[in-house]
């Protein structure tokens, strides 16, 4: 192997010059602040989650704009390490797992998380039909203990916000939790807990009902 590459040695000089050139740009890159870096890296996310973070059901990408920073950060790390999104039936997760590995360093992950959480919240269009918010309200009582009565989420409980979220995504997540497609990995303790909680919803209809109630909580936040 080394013999064939002797030509490389000859051109080391050229390479070094080039590396110096690159280092120059790398330096300017490091000085850029986190937000700019996050925006830059979000270019890939925007391919599916769209420019304003509205998400697109066709691409299995939920709305993410304005999600809590700690939550985005934790999920990106989970995806990247394969704690989440590596179940063989989790079609969307199997796409997100490789995409998250595009973020090479933890700094990049937190830059993206900061950028996403700073995006203005959106109200994705409701697409799930057949849910009854009245029944859902009763079912939601259990959820409220962690996710909060307004669905605003609680960091202390490791519970993400549920409002301003794509309703189809809430349904599919609950279904995945129930089927053990999410929360199968014991290392992902929060998801394991959620997997247990999801079993309190007895059937498909109950899932739709509770999601229908959650979407009624989607009021624009007061400034």
């Amino acid at each position, binding site marked *: 192997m080394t013999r064939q590459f002797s030509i490389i040695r000859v051109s080391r000089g050229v390479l070094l010059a080039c590396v110096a050139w690159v280092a120059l*740009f790398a330096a300017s890159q490091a000085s850029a602040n986190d937000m700019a870096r996050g925006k830059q890296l979000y270019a*890939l996310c925007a391919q*599916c989650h769209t420019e304003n973070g509205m998400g697109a059901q066709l691409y299995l990408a939920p709305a993410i704009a304005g999600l809590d920073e700690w939550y985005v950060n934790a999920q990106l790390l989970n995806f990247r390490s394969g704690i989440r999104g590596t179940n063989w039936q989790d079609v969307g997760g199997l796409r997100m797992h490789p*995409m998250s590995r595009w973020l090479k360093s933890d700094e990049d992950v937190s830059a993206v998380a900061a950028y996403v959480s700073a995006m203005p919240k959106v109200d994705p269009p409701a697409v799930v039909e057949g849910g009854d918010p009245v029944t859902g309200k009763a079912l939601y009582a259990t959820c409220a203990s962690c996710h909060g009565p307004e669905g605003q989420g609680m960091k202390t409980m490791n519970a993400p916000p549920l409002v301003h979220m794509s309703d189809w995504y809430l349904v599919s997540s609950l279904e995945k939790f129930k089927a053990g497609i999410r929360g199968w990995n014991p290392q992902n303790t929060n998801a394991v807990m959620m997997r247990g909680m999801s079993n309190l919803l007895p059937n498909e209809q109950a899932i739709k009902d509770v999601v229908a109630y959650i979407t009624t909580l989607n009021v624009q936040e007061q400034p």
Partner: protein
Amino acid sequence: MAELIPTQPDPGHEDDHHHGEQSFVSKYLLSTDHKVIAMQYMFTGMAMALIGGFMAYAFRMQLAFPGMDVPFFGIVTPANYVALVTNHGAIMIFWVAMPVLIAAFGNYLIPLMVGCDDMVFPKINRLSYQVFLVSAIVLLSSFFVEGGGFGGAWTTYPPLSAKAEYNLTPLGSSLFIGAVGIEFIAFLLGGINFITTAMNSRAPGMKLYDIPMVIWMIVIASILFMVSVGPLLAGAIMLIFDQQLHTAFYDPNRGGDPVLWQHLFWFFGHPEVYVVLLPAVGITAEIITVFSRKKLFAYRTVLNTAIGTGVLSFCVWAHHQFISGIDPRMANVFTLTTLLISIPIAEMMFVYIATLYGGAIRLTTPMLWALAFIFEFLIGGVTGIFLGASGADIYMHDTYFVLAHFHYTFFPIAIIGTYAGVTYWFPKMFGKMMSDRLGKLHFWGTIIPFNFIFIPLFFLGAGGQHRRIYDFQNFPALAGEGMQDLRILATVSLVVMLGFQVVFFYNFIISLMRGEKAGKNPWKANTLEWTAESPPPHGNWKVLPTVYRGPYEYSVPGREKDYWPQDEPN
């Protein structure tokens, strides 16, 4: 029927091509003059080449220095990366090689070399350029729609290309296919003129074997293109229907078959290689005969090998699909036909090398380009054997070896062939000589880095690295230290090579402004275009020429001059 055609006027009386002062628009944008249309094609092609080259720069920087903020581009995301490689390939083949080699040289040379005043259907000719321009605009616009440019490789295999949920570019993918389809229509329109002009409008006395080789090659290439492109056009309509109307021609879940597209694509895709190869081979034939002052060795053999290659090229398409799930028994047939195609191509190369024997070789800039074409294409040719052999292709398929191989064919064709042609016909096109010194600087500054780009890629391919992978750090066992060095070497060479193109544009402009005036025939060549003024006026000649002999009568014994123009009575 024949009586409806007006009798041919005596060329002597057909000289009043007087045009008054024309506005810029009607002279350069809406002209029906074949030379103006040729220039339109050439400059559009060059502009697209710059765009394609810039794309190559962006993704090669990403490969060499993963994750870097590429100067003048920004960060290359995986989505950018696939869109860049896809459009780089499509642009370089459909919007650079084809317009420059076939349309620009075809339009410029066919009327001049067969001795008539214009194309047969000047308005169709103008239309073909306008359609082509539309296709280029449609392609470039695909980058600015939602979702961005299409990123499913220039081969556009469905279901990836057919469904937005897979390719994530709901509009980009349709614009891409649409642009390619429109471009095909432009070249079908152009083909009407190439065929009819070369066949029907030849100067009196010009027999079939008196036609210069480059004209033959463009005609054969046009026929190959016309025959091969039809099924793909039908397939492209089906693919756009799949994308936008949600039909299921290529959807396996609803009764379609994705492999059908591969057959339609490669039935076109392989002949397409020869469509662009043949004009470049023709250009080379003109140049090496002039600058070695030799008759082309075995003119008819060259012609026959070109036709043989063309016919065989329709029987080899599935060698792109050896491992695509086609019936394995079919692979044996296609291995056979693929290796058979080495026979006419090898013979063509032998003919060119034999032509050099006994010549008086003048190493001018165009000659250097032509010689480089022969040598570099030889490398491209021999490395193709590895891929045509089905057994070896199991390993080599879709590796960098393939990539290096076809760049060793397409680069000589599209870039070296173009530079050879431009430097050779520049005096005719613009009436000025190009600087030979700058030309040679540009030549070496292009050829040496070119080899340093692609030879390392052969090693990468032999090491099992695949194409279209945007970051090799994900493959710990494959992305060894030495491999990354090779990628950096290739990228640095690319940047150097792109930098040297500035020399060409500088030379182009400076020669245009201050170049030495070229006479009618600065190279002392035989073919008819050199008997016209430089640059030829509208209508080309005052008196259209008559032909008395073949195009390659150089150094004929017993003659004082070592060339014998085709239109000289004796």
